């Protein structure tokens, strides 16, 4: 087994809405090992970005309550004083942001922006810094690095800017890298390039990557392990092959069935009934996905859904996965008619 680099234990991140705290991340436990890509998938509002922001300490603590543990090395990041935390973030834990158009400072040259974290975290001479920066630019696949070093963000295309954002994240050799929707804002061909680049970079280093995305295609291409989140909880966790070959949780199966690329021709896509509940309206007792698969009888769910190891290293929440089926698969069969009436 590889060494764990980041351990999240029963993390709960709650936001203050009109005086009450509502948990957007609700008891998430997760371990990232070195040289591993863990993908966190889910739709908007499932808490995946709130989780990333908790790790990076980006929440406004005036209206956010964080409980649980985020263990990095032998320190709990949530209890660390800010001065010490600042020594870690940007250096050992770095982040790639979603939108390269807004993540860069329009007033600073690319070189200066890549050197900025080095100024803070590493003691390097000016020439060492410059060499390191040029080396980084080459590594992220920018060929005319001398020129780009002097350029400003507006002179670069979206794909080039995302490469720069990745170079900034890699500038101090991070141990853990958080990538929050790193390809969502990019064109398909550029997305493919950035995915391939991240795979290559990952082979060269021991960095553990947390990849946050809503795109199951990106997950299939990049992840080693997948964590599926719904309404603040992890509902399924498995190796990437297992998850795509044998998805268990009803939510995972529904998601996979609603991707057009999974289909040929003009069949109907699967639609998940209802909507994602908002933080205030979420029923926190019982299976959170139950209202959206109302044709599954109540007794098939657990009262307090727990994670089960259904197969070795394949975890799934609640027992409803055992009897779950898609109603459209059973149209005309007696069983479906029986549950309808």
């Amino acid at each position, binding site marked *: 087994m590889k060494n764990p680099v980041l351990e999240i234990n029963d993390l709960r991140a709650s936001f203050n809405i009109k005086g009450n705290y509502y948990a957007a991340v609700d008891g998430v436990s997760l371990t990232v090992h070195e040289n591993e890509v863990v993908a966190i998938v889910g*739709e*908007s509002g499932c808490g995946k970005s709130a989780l990333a922001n908790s790790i990076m300490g980006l929440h406004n603590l005036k209206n956010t309550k964080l409980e649980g543990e985020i263990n990095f090395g032998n320190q709990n990041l949530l209890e660390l004083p800010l001065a010490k935390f600042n020594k870690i973030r940007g250096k050992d834990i770095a982040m790639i942001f979603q939108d390269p158009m807004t993540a860069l400072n329009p007033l600073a040259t690319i070189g200066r922006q890549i050197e900025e974290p080095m100024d803070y975290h590493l003691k390097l001479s000016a020439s060492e810094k410059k060499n390191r920066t040029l080396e980084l630019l080459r590594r992220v696949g920018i060929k005319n690095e001398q020129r780009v070093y002097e350029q400003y963000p507006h002179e670069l295309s*979206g794909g080039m800017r995302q490469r720069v954002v990745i170079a900034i994240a890699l500038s101090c050799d991070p141990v853990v890298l958080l990538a929050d929707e790193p390809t969502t804002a990019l*064109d*398909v*061909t*550029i*997305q*493919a*390039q950035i*995915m*391939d680049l991240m*795979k290559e970079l990952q082979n060269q280093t021991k960095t553990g990557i947390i990849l946050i995305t*809503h*795109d*199951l*295609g*990106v997950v*299939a*291409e*990049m*992840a080693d392990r997948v964590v599926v989140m719904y309404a603040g909880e992890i509902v399924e966790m498995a190796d*990437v*092959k297992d998850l*795509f070959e044998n998805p268990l949780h009803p939510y995972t199966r*529904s*998601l996979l069935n*609603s*991707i*057009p*690329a*999974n*289909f040929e021709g*003009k069949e*109907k*896509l*699967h*639609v*998940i009934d209802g*909507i*994602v509940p908002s933080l205030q309206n979420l029923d926190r007792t019982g299976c959170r996905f139950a209202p959206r698969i109302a044709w599954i009888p109540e007794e098939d769910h657990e009262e307090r859904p727990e994670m089960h190891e259904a197969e070795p290293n394949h975890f799934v929440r609640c027992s409803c996965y055992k009897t779950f089926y898609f109603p459209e698969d059973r149209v005309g069969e007696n069983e479906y008619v029986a549950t309808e009436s």
Partner: protein
Amino acid sequence: MSLLKVNDLKIHYPIRGGFFRRVVDHVKAVDGISFELQPGETYGLVGESGCGKTTSGRAIIGLNNVTSGELLFEGKDLAKMGRMERRKHTKDIQMIFQDPYSSLNVRKNVLNIIAEPLRNFERLSPKEELLRVQELVARVGLSPESIYKYPHQFSGGQRQRIGIARALALKPKLIIADEPVSALDVSVQAQVLNFMQEIQEDFGLTYLFISHDLGIIQHMCDRIGIMYRGRFVEEGTASEIYNNPQHLYTKRLIAAIPELDPEKRFEKMHLRQSINQEYQNDYNNYFDKDGRMYDLKRISESHSVAMQ
């Protein structure tokens, strides 16, 4: 007869500079594209950002000025009509916009949003109008009481359905859908796409479906046109484009679709690398001496490729 025939459409924007800000050059956003929409079909316009697909869509509905070319809608050229004359025909062409968060007026309730096109084109009494809106709201699957609600009270998918109800209000023949689901989550995407197929059958609609997402295009479209730098690269039926792509740019786009089978990820990565290499080496072979993509050449009944 085709419902819409676009003939050598060009949309150029002037670049001004120098003395007296004279026109020094043109940006050729759309540079001579031609295609036809048959009644009842879904035509996909695909390409990366900046390829001119949205500009073309907006020109058809009259939101952009046309530099030259013909837009024959039911045989009549929209591009040459004056404003007032054009208005009579634009009723039959409606648009679904990309972002349901910014395409609905936040200060209007659903009744006023959906009734706006009716008020522009039809004289209805308030009672008739209410009835029509209620019908539409029911058709797009929203609850009847939602007509007095405001856009912020709805989720993204519901908002997009309000946008669709507005587009349907005048019973159009052609709907231009510009990235109608790219701002939505996958499961909501599925909902809106299914719904668009349903109303296509019910209302006998023709879609011009603009998107950068090749998975969605494959699912939705009968015929597809691939655009690059304001020109068509390849045109054909969905199966021709996906199973037998001819142009290297098309191959590159299709190779960029993420592979959903984790076992094949390295295969796909190598495929992409070799196509990219080929693309870079042969890049110049795909343009004529003026740096323009070649005209489309027919290689079968329905399949055309931009080649020498």
